[in-house]
């Protein structure tokens, strides 16, 4: 009985210790990502970050890009790369080195003035990069 109580107390502590109030009215980032092949399994990506509400460019943030394969979640963890600011405000550039071709979910992690994460799923082929297909298409 004491053990059950102990587990209940632990669970309740976890629930109480975490913040309860959700701050919904926050600035959110929007990202447009374009990538092109730059070598074997290497891709040059340009990211344009904007404020999702005001549509203003988001400059001055620290942007790191990680990637995970949706078909094999948590199995392929590409080491995040830091994006360099481009010429125009809100534009960032980064070179990604992937482990294989296919669909990758890019995790754009923003830090600094704005902390956020934006996800974009793209299909990385040897010769091009395009938006990922969500389900296999069947042709009869």
């Amino acid at each position, binding site marked *: 009985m004491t053990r059950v109580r102990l587990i209940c107390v632990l669970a309740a502590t976890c*629930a109480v210790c975490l913040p309860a109030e959700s701050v919904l009215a926050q600035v959110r980032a929007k990202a447009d990502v374009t990538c092109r092949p730059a070598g074997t399994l290497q891709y040059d990506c340009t990211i344009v970050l904007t404020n999702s509400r005001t549509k203003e460019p988001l400059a001055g943030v620290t942007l790191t890009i990680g990637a995970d394969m*949706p078909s094999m979640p948590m*199995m392929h963890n590409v080491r995040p790369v830091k994006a360099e600011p481009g010429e125009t405000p809100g534009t960032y550039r980064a070179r990604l080195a992937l482990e294989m071709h296919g669909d990758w979910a890019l995790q754009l992690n923003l830090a600094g003035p704005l902390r956020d994460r934006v996800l974009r799923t793209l299909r990385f082929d040897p010769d091009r990069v395009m938006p990922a297909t969500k389900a296999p298409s069947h042709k009869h």
Partner: protein
Amino acid sequence: MDDYLVSVLSNIGVISFVALSAYLLLLTGEISFGQQAFFAIGAYAAGIATALWGWPLGAALAWGALAGGTAAVLVGLPTLRLHGLYFAVATLAFAETVRLLFEQFRYQVTIDGELVGPNGTDGFRGIRYIFENDVGSLQFLGLIYALLLAALAAFVLLERSRLGVAFRMIGEDATLAALNGIAVARTKLLAAGLAGALAGVGGGLYAHLTTYVEPRIFDVMLGVHSLAYGLIGGLGTAFGPLLGVLIDIGLLESVRVFAGYRMIIFGGLVALLLILRPRGLLDERVVHRIRRAWFRLLVRSHSTERLNRDLP
């Protein structure tokens, strides 16, 4: 701590839940290829709870566990009558049905001028609890491992309890267990429910860690891996599946020379271990040896201490 290390450790922690979930069913002698379904149910349930209903994370994770556990019991009612291959196929079919249902599932709410919620194959983006509440990645890592430790502690207690013995007895021989007075169907259903709840917690953590989920994340690959972790790590203790996760994500991930060949190595490792060590690296015999060695060490140190104290 390095962001990459935090990310790998978080992944190891989260996937350990679904590995432990598959392990719990393996204890009762059932091979499930469908634990990813309860992981998915937990992920969607917990994500909806925080992102759309504004619940605190603790309550959302509990809700995810409840949803996963309830679904597992409901699936267990008809499928646990099946055995071996039939049960494995039934769980796989259920998991694929759940994944396809999530591809049709749409439930979006306008929050702060933006549509948030599950949107079929586009998935469920905007599970931004950790950003909205300023939960750091290290803090979240701490939460994952606190819950994992609690789960492991529960497993240790379970293994020492009558229920744990009943699980193993059923796993060894269900007929013999029934002859010894164990309610086999009820006990297996309980194991299925607990395993579903465990996967549900993992799913809830995953949804909040990555901030998005989509149906294809929960395909058979995740189910096969979660099952393989127990088979690689060993069925002698709950630390076995964790060892399996560590070998796959920890070792193969850190040794980048394996990148791209990882699935081949992983598949080969599973095949090799199934031949050489059918019950994994930490099987019952190894665990017994470790326990005996540990006990001897304790007795020896205790007697030396006593001898030193008694000497003038």
